[in-house]
């Protein structure tokens, strides 16, 4: 009895092991074929901002193509980045819908969305669906101040713009022998303009500069901003800080020229960085100062710009450069996560720490996200349109020309 019992136990154990063994093995036998990594790309591809959206998109496309051509994501067995595009039409609601669509169609990560107003609801959707969202452009402070965990912003936030604009003004005495005391603020009235203006005001207060005028306007559908410009000029400022989109920036430049104003105009990388600004204004665009996220004149910028231009026939902009960088950040995170699991990807993104090099093309020392997902090392420099080219003039380490003031 006893023995036979023992025998049955052993036999049962063997049977169980035998049954389990193949089951346990099948899980590990063949490595999965490299599945593509679905990347949702969310930009205004139609409407007023279509060309800017396309510029953003091109940065993403170039980076993805280069990565795929170089063998894809090594940690995922050479998985390719598969881009899926969503058109926000510049509308927050459409942007939110498109973000949801992309996520539901399998995108494990989103990149976008250029406009702060669209980026806010889009990131909210991503947060709700626990999908990482890499913001290449979209500078409203609040984007990374909501306690979201899936939002990562590569570009500087509004505060940085206002801060750096003011900072540049304080350096103008040194750079061009032009001390600035009285500052006029001219900005469009959406989130972009408002939050940047708030940052400007904060920085101006801290720097002890006087705000002599603050004029807001509705950029969308604006046809004439001469009264706003005149209002600014009436305060007799030493310099004007503007926050613009493309159309209004042209209107402002035209109004200023009309009024014969001859004072430094510093934009916050708004409409003035667009190629159309120079194209439309021609000589009127000359000497316009603006913050810029990127410049082909910056170190290493030449080769990237050459590749970009060869592919798309235009110079790379801050938008497309940050879009390009967003994809590099994604690639780095995927390599470290070794998985397309969104949670793992989020954690990998949160620990991103890139130094300047082939994987970090931005004009700053590092790329690292703070607890809120903001790239805390993101910095701006000032370019001036000199002979139709955006030439870096500040800070000194990136400057390739001196600041030119209208006399």
């Amino acid at each position, binding site marked *: 009895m006893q023995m036979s019992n023992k025998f049955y136990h052993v036999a049962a154990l063997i049977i169980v092991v035998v049954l389990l063994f193949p089951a346990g093995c099948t899980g590990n036998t063949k490595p999965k074929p490299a599945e593509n990594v679905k990347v949702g790309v969310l930009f205004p591809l139609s409407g007023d901002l279509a060309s800017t959206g396309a510029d953003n998109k091109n940065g993403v496309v170039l980076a993805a193509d280069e990565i795929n051509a170089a063998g894809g994501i090594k940690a995922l067995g050479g998985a390719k980045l598969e881009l899926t595009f969503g058109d926000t039409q510049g509308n927050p609601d459409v942007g939110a819908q498109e973000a949801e669509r992309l996520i539901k169609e399998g995108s494990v990560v989103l990149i976008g969305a250029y406009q702060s107003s669209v980026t*806010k*609801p889009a*990131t*909210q959707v991503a*947060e*709700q669906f*626990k999908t990482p969202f890499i913001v290449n452009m979209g500078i*409203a*402070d*609040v984007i990374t*101040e*909501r*306690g*979201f*965990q*899936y939002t990562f912003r590569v570009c500087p936030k509004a505060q940085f713009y206002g801060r750096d604009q003011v900072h540049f003004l304080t350096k103008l005495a040194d750079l061009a022998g032009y001390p600035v005391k009285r500052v006029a603020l001219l*900005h469009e*009235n*959406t*989130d972009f*303009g*408002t*939050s940047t*203006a*708030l940052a400007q*005001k*904060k920085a101006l*207060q801290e720097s002890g500069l006087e705000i002599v005028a603050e004029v*807001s*306007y*509705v950029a969308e559908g604006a046809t004439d901003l001469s009264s706003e410009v005149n209002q600014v000029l009436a305060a007799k400022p030493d310099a004007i800080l503007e926050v613009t989109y493309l159309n209004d920036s042209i209107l402002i430049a035209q109004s200023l020229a009309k009024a014969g104003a001859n004072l430094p105009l510093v934009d916050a990388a708004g409409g003035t960085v667009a190629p159309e600004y120079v194209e439309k204004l021609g000589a009127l665009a000359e000497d316009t100062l603006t913050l810029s996220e990127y410049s082909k004149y910056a170190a290493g910028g030449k080769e990237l710009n050459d590749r970009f231009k060869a592919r798309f026939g235009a110079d790379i902009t801050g938008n497309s450069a940050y879009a390009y960088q967003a994809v590099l950040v994604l690639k780095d995170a995927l390599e470290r996560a070794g998985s397309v699991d969104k949670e793992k990807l989020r954690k990998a993104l949160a620990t991103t720490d890139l130094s300047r090099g082939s994987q970090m093309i931005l004009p700053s020392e590092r790329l690292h996200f703070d607890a809120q997902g903001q790239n805390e090392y993101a910095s701006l420099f000032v370019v001036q349109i000199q002979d139709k080219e955006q030439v870096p003039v500040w800070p000194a380490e990136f400057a390739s020309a001196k600041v030119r003031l209208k006399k």
Partner: protein
Amino acid sequence: MNEGPSSQAHVPWRQSLATRLGLTSVLIVVAALVAVGVGLIWIALQAQQESAFQSQKKSGDKVALLISNYVQGAVGDLQLFGSIESLATMPPAEKKAALENLLIQRQSLFSQLAVLDKNGVEEVKVSQFHTFLPGDLGSRANEDAFVKAVSGQTYIGTVYVSRDSGLLSIQVALPINARGGQVVGVLTSEVNVSRLWQEVSQIQVGQTGYAYLVDVNGRFVAYHEPTEVLQRYGEDMRRMPPVAEFMANGPEGMQQGREYVGLTGERVIGLYVPIQGTDWAVVVEWPVREAYASVTRMQWYLVGLTLLGMVVAGGLGYLMSRHLSRPVRALTMSAQRIGAGDLDAEVVEVRRQDEIGVLARAFRQMQGELKVLYSSLEQQVSERTADLQRRSSYLLASAEVGRAATSILEMDRLIGQVVELIRERFKLYYVGLFLVDESGQWAMLRAGTGEAGRAMLARGHRLGIGSGSMIGWCITHAEARVALEAGKDAVRLATAELPDTRSEAALPLRSRGRVLGALTVQSDRPAAFDEIAMAALQTMADQVAVALDNAHLFAESQAALEAARRAYGELSREAWGELLRVWPDLAYRSDEHSVSDARDIWRPEMEEALQTGKTVHGNDEHAGAKLSLAVPVRVRGNVIGVLETYKPGEADDWTPEEVALMETLTEQLGMALESARLYQDTQRRAMQERLIGEVTSRMRESLDVDRVLQTAVREFGEKLGVAEVKIRLTSDDH
């Protein structure tokens, strides 16, 4: 199935003492452990519940305080701002600048600020996300915030997600008082409470606990994870018991821990803490898994301990009971071996001082008694069996002797054979048979076995009846006598011819109340004649006596018969002698022609046949060539004549058949002659009888003596044909 002793000894493990004791101890230990463990766990559970409640309440209070402080901080800022004395009288541009300043200073707190006049119309409105142009301003007179604030109260609205920022926000409004204290406007604000939750998340509720915020309508308001907030915002949380309690009891309600399935789908202990200054409550949920982790751990310890206790108690109980039951088992084995017949089986454990020792000793005693009983029984049986065998062999022997004895009627042969048979069958040394002589004085040895017997017979061994011999005593008393050890019996007379006799017995031969004699039986073994042997021998002796008596009677009757026969034959011979005296030569001859008188014919062969009484063949030539045959004629053994016949000379000699035929015929002739003679004789007697009768009756006709005498003389003379008859009566006196 072969149910041998070993299989009987095998106790199934279920029934064995060891198993039972082991199980019993397991039960006791388990029961004790479980009882103590359950008690401890219950106590621990109570303590844990209390501590969990306290810990949760503490967390809830912390969260509530934090939120309260946060909101109060915002309210405080606004109150401070609203209390600026000049605010009411400031020009709009300055008001705007002041508001913008506040917005910048409290950038993370306020996302929008506005000053409304006492009619609810917006005078100034600043936002972090939008720059309002003069045309954007309007009236907010219908909003609850304004209505409440304009009445002099502070308004704290419900939480909502700001459309501009996507931030969780609340609206706070409070009145702007003029110097006289009268309300001249309202300060409203959108307060960002998103940040609050980053702070709330810092407050831990255990490791896995969490807190969330509900408003007085039971709507989900906030949580430390924005994702959850975005997904659940506005959800009706009434199903959570603490929420329902909060809705029922309001800020003043009792706080109590409840157990239910919480927000994360796990069982939790939850309670709510009202937030001062708001109509919200914090609900703190702590997974039961963690809250009662220590109790759960304790349960597992108890289970482990119980299992361990079972194993240890089972093992110890088993070992102990084995230790106790081993001697019992050993004793059982002994008992079974004894039961199976092995009375020499060793009884173990007898030296123990405990109850088992007592049992073992009692057992050993029983074994000893059994052994004695058994061996004596065996002896008895073997004795009985031997007795029985002897008895049956004796019976057989006596039956054989009896059968032999009764089948022999000749006395001498009977006696001689009987003694030999007895000696042989009863395996005796010597057997002798004495018979009482006619004088009744002596017991004569009539037969004895072997050389000794012949020798004693030869010397005419006899013993006096009533003498000192065993035989003599035996015959006198008609009783058997045994000398178990010959030589010790005073009555026994040692005989020189029988030197090897060790024991001896004398048996009377009794028949029909007489003692015919006695048997002496002697054995070369001492004490050979016990009761059984004596009984058998006596039976046998009685049979022999009867046989002897029978033989004696037979001899007597034979003798009587012979005498009778002889007497009858004599009579017949005399009668024939008388007859032949009357007719001296009765002889007849038959030839081919006639029967003639043949008184003159008497031949020598006839004389020979008459003398010898046998058939004689005659061969004399004088009769011519004739073969004569003389056959004696017999009547009752007496030859009264001879029948002669002869064949012609040319015929063959007499064949035996012819002779036998002649003899038979002659015998018939004798018998016929006898019959005829007897008839004649009878006739004669009958005539005489008649004569006597006639005479007698004549003589009895008269009663007178003379007449009788005369009649008698006359009758005698007449009837008897005698010449003279005289009768004379005399007396003795003459």
